[in-house]
Structure formats: C-alpha cells, structure tokens
C-alpha cells in the first residue's frame, strides 16, 4: 500500500537531509512534494525555490517529482513511499488530529491524506536537532538561473554571509553553478557547525550557461540585501570570462575522446 508521510519542522532542522537518507534506505518507488510552509506572526517563510526538490531528484534517480503530478503518478502504487515536506515553525498542538489548516488546504489540492505526520523536535522517529526559538525572521531570495560563480569568490561570499557580514543569517541554502559544469547544494544553519557544500551527481558540459535550477534562499534578521547583491555581482562570471575558463575544459574533453 502507498505510504504518505508529512514531515514538518522549523527552518534548518534537517528535514531534507532526513528525507534523503530515508528514501535512499527505502530504495524502491518513491515520490517527493514540498509544500509552502505555514506563516507565523513575524516569521517570514523561506521562499520555496525548488532547491530541496532539485537536490533530492539529483541524489535519488528513481524519485518522482509530485510538484506537478500527472493523474497516472498519483494512482496508488503498491509500495510507493511518498514524503511531503513543509516548513512549520511551531509544533502541532497535542489535541490536533490533522495537519495545520494551511498545509491541509494544499494537501487537499493534491488530493493527498498523510498516513503519518512527524514534526522535528516532537516525534522521536526524527533525529533530535537543536531547533532555535524564532521570534522574528526575515526572508530573502535570489534567482540565479543561468549564473555561474567564480569558485573562490563563492567561498569568500559564503564565509561572509554565514558569519554576519550581511546581517544575522540563521539559514541559508542554495544551488550554485560552477564553470566546469558542476553544481553544488550549499547548506547552512546557525545551530549546526560548518556549512555543507555537496556536489550534485549530474554534471553538465562546460558549454555556456547551464539551464538548470539555481537559487539562493536566506532567512535571518537585519539582512542587508543590497550588500548581498553587490557582492554576488562581483562573484559571477561574465560571458567572456566564462568562455575563457570553459574553452580549455572542452579541449581537454575532446582530447580524451577515442579516435578510430
């Protein structure tokens, strides 16, 4: 029987990482859906830019993307495991017998009813993470589709970002493109030590600007968007520089081609 689980928790508690490990262990037919989270007073939601979806699709080749499902894929499959993720700052009330109304509204549109609902910080099946108490949270995001980074500049920018040069950043995640065709999932949460820079499995040929998803999402306090954007502009490669870096890579690749 198809299993549908809803996984909720505040930003940066580790929902996507847990989902990735769980689906890899499952090994069989599976699907993923990320819903818009629940609003909560002065706490702005991180923009749902599809970063987590792209990351999971890259890591788990058989994963179905249910963000735009067809009627076929929603047919109940014998052992399909469906994980639905949503950002939710506050824990569900003990008396609640269903998901948060804002989440339920979205589930109804997809015609989905979760069999299990797990919330980080409440349910023991989920790893214990230090989840922060948020009282005020701003959100900011930038679409980086078609943008390619100078790798050393990205390292410097990320260091500045997570160490407070552009405001108090609590949560930052991104998909970033490199000139050699690789893409990295960059992940930071203030309660964890260190950032993650995880390369995606799929690498595109170094022939200009890649068309795949690239986005930066930040949550924090007293953010300085103008400073962030200005620095990002200085980190991104222009067409000329990108071509200068990619041409030798293409030559290397063509030299490796077998000749008959």
């Amino acid at each position: 029987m198809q299993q549908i689980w809803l996984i909720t928790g505040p930003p940066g508690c580790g929902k996507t990482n847990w989902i990735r490990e769980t689906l890899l262990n499952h090994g069989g037919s599976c699907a993923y859906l990320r819903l818009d989270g629940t609003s909560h007073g002065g706490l702005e939601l991180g923009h749902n830019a599809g970063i987590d979806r792209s990351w999971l699709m890259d890591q788990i080749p058989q994963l179905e993307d249910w963000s735009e499902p067809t009627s076929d894929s929603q047919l109940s499959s014998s052992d399909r495991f469906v994980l639905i993720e949503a950002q939710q700052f506050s824990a569900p009330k003990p008396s609640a017998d269903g998901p948060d109304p804002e989440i339920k509204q979205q589930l109804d549109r997809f015609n989905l009813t979760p069999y299990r609902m797990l919330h980080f910080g409440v349910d023991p099946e989920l790893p214990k993470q230090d989840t922060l108490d948020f009282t005020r949270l701003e959100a900011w995001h930038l679409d980086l589709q078609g943008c390619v980074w100078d790798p050393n500049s990205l390292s410097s920018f990320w260091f500045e970002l997570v160490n407070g040069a552009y405001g108090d950043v609590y949560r930052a995640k991104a998909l970033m493109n490199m000139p050699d065709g690789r893409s990295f999932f960059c992940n930071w949460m203030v309660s964890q030590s260190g950032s993650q820079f995880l390369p995606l499995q799929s690498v595109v040929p170094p022939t200009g600007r890649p068309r795949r998803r690239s986005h930066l999402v930040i949550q924090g306090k007293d953010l300085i968007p103008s400073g962030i954007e200005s620095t990002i502009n200085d980190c991104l490669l222009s067409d000329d520089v990108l071509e200068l870096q990619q041409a030798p890579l293409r030559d290397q690749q063509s030299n490796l081609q077998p000749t008959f």
Partner: protein
Amino acid sequence: MAHAVISCLHANLAAFEAVLDDIDQQGIKTITCLGDLVGYGPQPNEVVELVRQRAIPTCQGCWDEDIIDGLNACECSYPSQLAERRGHQAHHWTANCLTDDNKAFLAQLPTTLRRDKLLFVHGSPNSQHEYLLPDMNAFAALERVETAGAETLFCGHTHQPYVRELSGGSIRVSVQQSGSEPAREQEMTLPMCRIVNAGSVGEPRHGSTKATYVVHDDVSGEVSIREVNYDVAKTCQAIVEAGLPEVFAWRLSHGFEYAGAPKMPAMCASDD
C-alpha cells in the same frame, strides 16, 4: 638606541594615530615606515599628510607604486575574482581621492632605505611585491639579506609580524671542471642575519584587530613586536561615510584582510 618600524598603514588614520601615541609614550624618536600608506582604507590624504608632517622616512610600498603607475603596472595577483574587483574598486577610489601633492610625495619615495647594516624595504630587496614569509626556505631568506649587504632586514607586505633569526649556517660544495682534474671541495660559512616583519598598522592579518609595529634596539639587538588597540569602529564609520564597500568595514572589524583568500574550503563536502 631604540627605534620603531611601522608598515602598511592603508589609509587607517585612527590606527596610525594610536601607534604614533604608543611610540611617543616610549620616548622613541626614530621611526621608519615601510610603505603602503594608502590602499583600501578611508583616509589616504590624512595618513600621507601625517607621515609628511612627522617627517617619517618612508619607502614605497606596492600600493603606493600602483597608485602612481596605474592598475596595469600592478603585479599583484588576487585569490579570486571578488578580491580582484574589490582591489580595483579600492584602487580607483584612492586614486581619485588623493591630492596631486600627496601623489607626488608617494612617487618620489625610494624603494629601499638603509642605515648602517639595517635595510628597510616594503616586500623584499628584490621587489615591492615579493612576500618574505616566516616559513620560506631559510637559505633563500638569508640570500635576500646577504645579497643586499645587510645584517638586519626590515620588511612588511605580509601584514603578519615576526622576527626570524638565521644562524649557524654553512654550505659545502664540490666543483668539477672539464679536464681530468679531481673535484675541489669548498665550504662557505654563512653570516648570521635577521628578518624583522613589522606587520601592519592599518590592516592587521595576524588574527587580531590590533595594529602592530616593531621596536628594535640597535645596540642590544633586541626586537619586540608591539600590539596597539585603537578605535576600530571609528575607521569602520569612516569607511561607510567615504562610500567604500560596507563589507570592508566588516572585514576590518573582524581582523580579516580586505581582499583575502577564501576562508572556506572551495566546494568540498562537509563532515556533517
């Protein structure tokens, strides 16, 4: 008698004034400056004018040279595109801001200064752009001092102060020439020498925000590295008011170099 050596002021007036106060309080009358009066910081004219007012003998730093000769003359390579863009931005801002009179002062600065067996340079005797790091090959370090005819070499450029003494050195060689003569053996005893890096007044990079300089007693030979607190917030405010990138203020207030190398491993998986 004690004398002070300062370096890499980088247009940071508050730091420079604090260092001069510290030197004055010790009753030291002789000060030598190893260049980079300007670059990145918000008060290039004020710093140059204070050097001129105090008549501090100064050698030309790489930034001083680049302001006069232009960006195309710059031999510095930057660790990233971001660092390069910031460096160029700082260069253009400084070049536009400096008065012609102060530029003329920087242009006439010598590349080296000498007093007896003491030699004062910005980077190395070879170049204003060469870094003499404390872990560079010891024989190469000795060669820099010995070839320049000095016993103690004062340098800056790295922004990290240190005192390095090279002693007990010798090199043995065997020489063979054409013909059937046997090889000749020779031994060269190397003189003792010291390299003293004065660190930086205006843009410290040794892990603290304090300005650094050195005091050398040319009778006893003793060298001490001095660290001086100054009002960093005042310089940060001046950076913002001058219209320089605000991130420069953040970097200075945390003891990071303005256009430094990436602090995080470039694009590798974490241990999480």
